[in-house]
């Protein structure tokens, strides 16, 4: 063989072994990422099946014996109520916010009226204001109106999400005006156009917004902790960390807390499995 041919064969061999190495590294990284991703979820479920003492003595192992007592304890400690509170608040805010944002998005893109651009610019300009900034003023104002420890204090302030309006508007800007004009020619009123033309067309954007809104509301902790921490209205996120054993000082009841964490994760998992695409496009909506 000529040296050139030998060189070519060697080169091909190195290329092939490098390719193999590349694949091994790639799959290796993915497997590690998958384990790291899933392990805490698995640990949560496993430890929810151990008694509180067992979690302290044997935090890493499998339950022996397994018990459902933690799930019973959630009941007796009023956590079902907290779970229902979470659902009521997250679901009603999601439905309301999506509807109100869709209505406003339609108005700002497809109905011509003076000042619509200014309204939009003013709203978007506030997107950097954190909820913390409003909190003291909000508390001072609404405490006197007896809104503290109610459902509405957890729902109403979040019915006008500026990022949601932004998402709907971006989407509707890509919808040709001629569709709306055609419906107007046919004599359809604005409400009819919104309900019959815009809502079906904007469905992908609205689904993504709904999923994102539900996730945000389900995860809210700061706001309800300050505004609605009474057991009758507090969501699961607020009540879970407070599940401590009073006889042992403030040692958390880890088994019960893990059972509650499972309860807090199940709705998100269901929404995720059911609406996976909307879920994952939701987080990237701003740049598509």
């Amino acid at each position: 063989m000529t040296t050139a041919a030998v060189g070519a064969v060697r080169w091909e061999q190195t290329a092939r072994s490098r390719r193999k190495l590349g694949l091994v590294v790639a799959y290796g990284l993915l497997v590690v990422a998958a384990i790291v991703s899933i392990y805490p979820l698995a640990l949560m479920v496993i430890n929810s099946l151990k008694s509180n003492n067992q979690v302290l003595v044997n935090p890493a192992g499998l339950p022996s014996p397994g018990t459902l007592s933690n799930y019973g304890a959630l009941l007796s400690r009023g956590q079902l109520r907290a779970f229902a509170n979470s659902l009521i608040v997250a679901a009603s805010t999601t439905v309301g916010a999506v509807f109100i944002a869709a209505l406003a998005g339609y108005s700002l893109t497809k109905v011509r009226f003076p000042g619509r651009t200014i309204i939009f610019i003013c709203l978007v300009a506030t997107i950097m204001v954190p909820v913390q900034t409003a909190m003291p003023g909000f508390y001072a104002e609404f405490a006197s109106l007896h809104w503290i420890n109610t459902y509405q204090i957890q729902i109403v302030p979040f019915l006008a999400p500026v990022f949601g309006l932004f998402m709907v508007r971006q989407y509707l800007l890509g919808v040709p005006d001629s569709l709306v004009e055609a419906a107007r020619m046919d004599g359809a009123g604005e409400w009819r156009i919104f309900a019959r033309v815009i809502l079906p067309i904007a469905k992908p954007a609205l689904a993504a917004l709904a999923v994102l809104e539900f996730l945000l509301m389900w995860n809210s902790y700061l706001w309800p902790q300050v505004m609605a921490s009474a057991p009758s209205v507090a969501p699961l996120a607020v009540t879970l960390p407070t599940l401590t054993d009073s006889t042992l000082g403030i040692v958390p009841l880890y088994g019960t807390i893990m059972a509650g964490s499972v309860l807090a994760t199940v709705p998100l998992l269901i929404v995720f499995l059911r609406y996976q695409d909307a879920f994952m496009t939701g987080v990237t909506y701003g740049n598509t």
Partner: protein
Amino acid sequence: MGAGYLFVAPFVVIFAVFSLWPDIYSLVLSFEKYSGYGRAVPVGTANYRALLGYGAFWTQLGNTLFYWVVHALILIPIAFVLAVIVRSKLVRGRKFWKPVIFLPQVMSIVAVSLVFETLFSQKYGVVNSVFGTNIAWLTNFAIARWIVVLLLVWQGVGFWFVVFLAGLTGVDPAVEEAAMVDGAGTVRRTISILVPMMKNVLLFAVVIDAIGSMALYTQPNVLTAQGGGLAVPAVGTLSNLVVGNLESGTFGESAAAGWLLFILTILVGAIVFGGFRLSGGRFGRGRQR
């Protein structure tokens, strides 16, 4: 035309009454002394001066910036590499890897913070139990700050990963594959080719992440303070000054802290955005050459 105003009205009214007005009222309160009842007394800039003269303010400002910068620096490379791998045609099972890596984003934030507490608790934690160590992961605050970062990274990778994956759909897969099969050294080259192509995606994600990080509250508190309390200043963030002062009835200082947080958010957003524009200029020149 009437319908235009009518349809946008619910949004605007709710926003004005429940967000805009409280923001403004907070600004008013930040120049007053008010305990939640009785009369508010004007005090000028006393609340701001009190906060800035308070050691805990600077500690918590430092923590807020620390959590943001460190978690983002670790997150970006991990999420980017994972996205490049999953996107590649050489790797199978994209429909499996994508949701699995995204999974932490789907878990309740309070729940995962509590799971991390059981992982790193000193006496009863999984990590100390498995490795036979006795490290005060959560009560030694120098270490605890890193556990908070770990939690943020673990939770955030899925988000960045999906953002990068979406961005990569606009790029020819051959670019990443060629670099990937070439071996380890070329990961850097992949990044130096792909990052400029995905500048806008990155800008969006980095800015959103920075803005969100300034308001960080849930993770450090649930992870390090038991019973739903506030974390100590050594691990707490600026948000704790808003909540702590509200709970102790010092509305003026709470409001001042809220407005300082807003100002910080604007500053950080502007700096990140400006920084990107500058490095964007460099990418542009690189392409021209």
